[in-house]
């Protein structure tokens, strides 16, 4: 793998840069010329009203949606599509929890594409799985089938899979939605662990009051980028008001019921 010459700025080496990113659904832009820089070792909240493009941004970073314009680069390398450096964590409802796999089996899935399609696991793969399970405090549960876990444990199992995959960027779609207080605290602790391991966490989030306690950076989004930066600097009344009190754009108002038809 080739890398560009290391930059003098130590932060820039672990940087995820997005520039001029536009993503559209049938010509209606959901994200419009977005640009921001974030770094490894940050917990970033992605904030904005429904329809502001939070999920779209996460999916685009995960390589699931085609871009209309724009560049994404990580570690000075351009990211053109799906990559193992980024781990996308699905929402709960997407998963068939009766799937015949244990916690350990789930975490092992993170290694599959590194190991290859049929080669057996080497010692280093087993080690990566063990470490991921330990980091997410799942050792006592590793033989459990995945439906026999609590919601918080299930999330940790998926994070462990991403760790075993050796992903650097964790893309979480509303991880805090529907969690009670202790589970929220637990997830907060886990996010800190990941951050201290040098991971970059980007999570869409709805509850504004908990932002300062959970995250150190924010990206405020409403189709356009409103602001991006440290919580202390940009998470203020004015920016939040601008983000949430501008109607979202769902295309020209031809169809009252909001469906986009194409002929």
């Amino acid at each position: 793998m080739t890398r560009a010459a290391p930059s003098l700025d130590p932060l820039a080496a672990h940087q995820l840069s997005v520039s001029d990113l536009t993503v559209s659904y049938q010509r209606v832009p959901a994200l419009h010329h977005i640009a921001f820089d974030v770094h490894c070792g940050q917990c970033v909240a992605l904030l904005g009203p429904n329809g502001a493009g939070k999920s779209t941004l996460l999916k685009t970073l995960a390589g699931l949606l085609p871009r209309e314009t724009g560049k994404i680069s990580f570690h000075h390398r351009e990211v053109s599509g799906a990559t193992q450096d980024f781990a996308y964590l699905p929402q709960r409802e997407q998963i068939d929890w009766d799937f015949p796999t244990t916690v350990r089996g789930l975490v092992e899935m993170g290694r599959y594409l590194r190991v290859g399609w049929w080669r057996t696991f080497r010692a280093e793969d087993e080690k990566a799985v063990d470490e991921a399970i330990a980091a997410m405090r799942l050792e006592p549960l590793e033989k459990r089938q995945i439906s026999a876990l609590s919601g918080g444990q299930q999330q940790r199992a998926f994070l462990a899979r991403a760790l075993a995959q050796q992903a650097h960027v964790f893309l979480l779609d509303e991880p805090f939605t529907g969690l009670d207080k202790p589970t929220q605290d637990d997830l907060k602790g886990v996010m800190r662990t990941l951050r201290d391991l040098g991971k970059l966490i980007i999570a869409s989030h709805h509850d504004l009051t908990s932002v300062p306690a959970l995250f150190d950076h924010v990206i405020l989004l409403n189709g356009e980028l409103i602001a991006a930066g440290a919580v202390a600097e940009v998470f203020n009344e004015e920016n939040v008001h601008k983000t949430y009190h501008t109607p979202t754009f769902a295309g020209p108002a031809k169809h009252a019921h909001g469906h986009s038809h194409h002929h």
Partner: protein
Amino acid sequence: MHWLTDAFQYEFQRRVFVGGVLIGFTNGFLGAFVVLRRLALMADSLSHSLLPGMALALLIFGLAPMGLFFGALVAALIVALGAQFMARNSRLKEDTALGLLYTVAFSAGVVLISFVKVRISLVHYLFGSILGLSNADLWTIYGISLVVVPLLVGLQRPLLLTLFDPTVAKSQGVRVNWLNFLLMFGLVVTMIASLKAVGVIMLLGLLIAPAATVYMLCDSYPAMLWGGGALGAFGCCTGLLISSRWDFLPSGACIVLVLGVFFFLAYVFSPRYGLLRKLRPARHFHAESLARWPGKTVEGEGAKKS
């Protein structure tokens, strides 16, 4: 003279045995994917839509195996893709579109096959016939099993990722659409190979019963694949041998009945997920629940006093 009949009988049994093992294993192995991806309805539609394709090929090309193979393949593809097209371009959902298309296709097949001049019986195609297994059919079975099983074994990791969560698999760079297509293709050719021995109507049973049985028993994906294959092979052989011993019994029905016995045993008696386990009243955890708070004990009902 009886040495000849003995040898023939030996040869016939052996042929049945090998064919049964291969068909059963391939179907059982594939079944895991069908069960986990909830493709049972899709698989049923595909199997039924083989009939009109084969009937048309019989009318045009006669009993030529290649004609039958491609006729069946094309008919299944038309129904599968047609249903997706209908679901995308109307308010119908895919299950209705599939159900409609395949019953219409199947009816067309039944009508068409009644016009076929060759001496074949519709009943054999519907319920399977051990006597209908010709050498050509057997070669088809060998060929298809030897392509499909290694393909699925080789691709089992990316397939597992795709089955478990297609979105995440795609974000990891797995070529999900391509794998789905391969899976469908494997499914259709396996059905074509199994058609003569099992029959259109029972194909689905041979496909999903072994995997469903293993699914009731364990939490391991490899066990579902290999266990399903092994159980399928066993059930298929047993069924075929029963129907060759009592040759008035349709082989498809015998196979599915054997597998059905195993499935219901697992469904009722599975230690972890069985019906009995579910019905057994659970112990009341009153004491444990109370024990979380210091200073409280269960009063009256057997609480120990020190």
